[in-house]
């Protein structure tokens, strides 16, 4: 990415484009190079051919609308910053835009003060180079954030979100006192949260009433966690030893993931679990299924179809599918690079199933 930030403006109003191109290029301290286009297809073509840091999009466009442009831009250029700048005051479009992964949603400024705020936010976005990490504080890992909070003797609650899974780390006067994930708490939850490779977080007010379950110092906690992650990584690198001629089911049972599946299924009254890798040919892991092939086909087809439908309707990421039938209840969800299909007995209530499914997704994500 070039040192001078590059911004692409997309709007069908030429007067607007001229005005904002001039304002952004001449009044921002980072002096970005600003290009403008008046159609979604031209914007996408330009993004394909030249590097940009930021795309500013009006939603209400003829032919290809702004949501379509955002969908394609997010998929093809995951590191591109996206900002909506529109005249549409509609809660639903705001929700859908954020669901598609935009960084900010702005109503076109009408006063000098609003314009000033908009310019400041754009400057903040383009003046930092995009880096991997937890969104909320740029260029900082979760370990950095915890160290910062503990060193400054802060009291706060860190809420960390990874996909659908939400975890919390409670810090009191510079000490980690508890951590929480759906169904678990304490040090194991802390380690699971820290093993997440990406996500987003926000700082919430402290919870002084939180009962302390973690008594290790934060340095000790971070060391233990780093050690656990290293051990897990080294185990993954070692090839699984499988007896020649073993049945496919036996092969799966020997894998580390199959062990996890068995562990989870025992505790949550789950009938079966099927985990699929990102590639069609990738080895499956399953538990509780005699013949995983038809369930594999159902899982792949259903997720693929509804992902395509989500793109078409511009409603953001597919989170999960819950199926209810006379003999089974089924949960299907993408989870990181995997796809999971989990079967529950029909007697399980909807709430129990939702909690159990969420718990499983949390374990899987960790």
């Amino acid at each position, binding site marked *: 990415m070039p040192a001078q930030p590059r911004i692409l403006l997309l709007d069908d109003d030429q007067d607007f484009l001229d005005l904002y191109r001039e304002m952004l290029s001449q009044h921002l301290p980072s002096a970005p190079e600003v290009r403008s286009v008046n159609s979604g297809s031209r914007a996408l073509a330009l993004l394909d051919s030249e590097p940009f840091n930021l795309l500013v999009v009006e939603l209400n466009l003829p032919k290809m609308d702004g949501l379509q442009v955002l969908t394609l831009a997010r998929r093809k250029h995951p590191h591109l910053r996206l900002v909506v700048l529109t005249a549409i005051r509609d809660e639903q479009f705001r929700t859908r835009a954020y669901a598609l992964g935009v960084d900010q949603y702005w109503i076109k400024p009408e006063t000098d003060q609003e314009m000033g705020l908009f310019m400041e936010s754009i400057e903040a976005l383009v003046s930092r180079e995009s880096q991997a990490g937890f969104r909320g504080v740029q260029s900082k890992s979760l370990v950095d954030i915890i160290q910062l909070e503990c060193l400054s003797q802060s009291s706060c609650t860190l809420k960390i979100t990874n996909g659908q899974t939400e975890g919390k780390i409670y810090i009191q006067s510079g000490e980690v006192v508890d951590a929480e994930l759906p169904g678990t708490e304490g040090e194991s939850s802390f380690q699971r949260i820290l093993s997440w490779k990406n996500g987003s977080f926000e700082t919430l007010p402290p919870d002084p009433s939180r009962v302390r379950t973690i008594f290790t110092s934060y340095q000790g906690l971070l060391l233990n966690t780093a050690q656990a992650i290293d051990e897990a990584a080294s185990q993954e690198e070692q090839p699984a030893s499988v007896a020649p001629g073993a049945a496919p089911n036996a092969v799966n049972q020997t894998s580390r993931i199959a062990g996890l599946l068995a562990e989870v299924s025992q505790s949550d009254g789950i009938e079966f679990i099927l985990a699929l890798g990102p590639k069609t040919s990738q080895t499956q892991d399953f538990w509780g299924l005699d013949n995983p092939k038809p369930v594999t086909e159902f899982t792949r*087809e259903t997720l693929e179809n509804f992902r395509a439908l989500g793109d078409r309707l511009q*409603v953001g990421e*597919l989170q999960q*599918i819950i*199926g209810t039938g006379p003999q089974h209840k089924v949960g299907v969800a993408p989870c990181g690079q995997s796809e999971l299909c989990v079967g529950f007995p029909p007697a399980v209530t909807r709430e129990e199933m939702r909690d159990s499914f969420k718990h499983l997704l949390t374990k899987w994500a960790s």
Partner: protein
Amino acid sequence: MGLLSRFFKPAETALVHLPSGSFTLDRDGEVMTCTLPQSFPEEHLKAIGQHVLTSFRSAKRAQLPLTELSIQYSALKLLARELGSGAIIFLMPQSLNKEPNGKLKKHP
């Protein structure tokens, strides 16, 4: 020209507002009844219906017969119930400020 172009700016847009409502489908995926506004494209209805019916059939082939499917997106929830060999499908747009049950979210 600037003034004229403001008045005669093309008004058509592809931006579609997601409505709340329901529709029913027959076994072939044809829309039978619909409470959604006409502004919501019929192609979208057919696409939703087709994927729902396909999933019900695919589940049956996998020995997992289902009578209800709840599909959760970040900004939309679809609820589909099997009706004979067709289906009734509910569209429920989701809001950042509302819980799935329609209540306003509490912010700390």
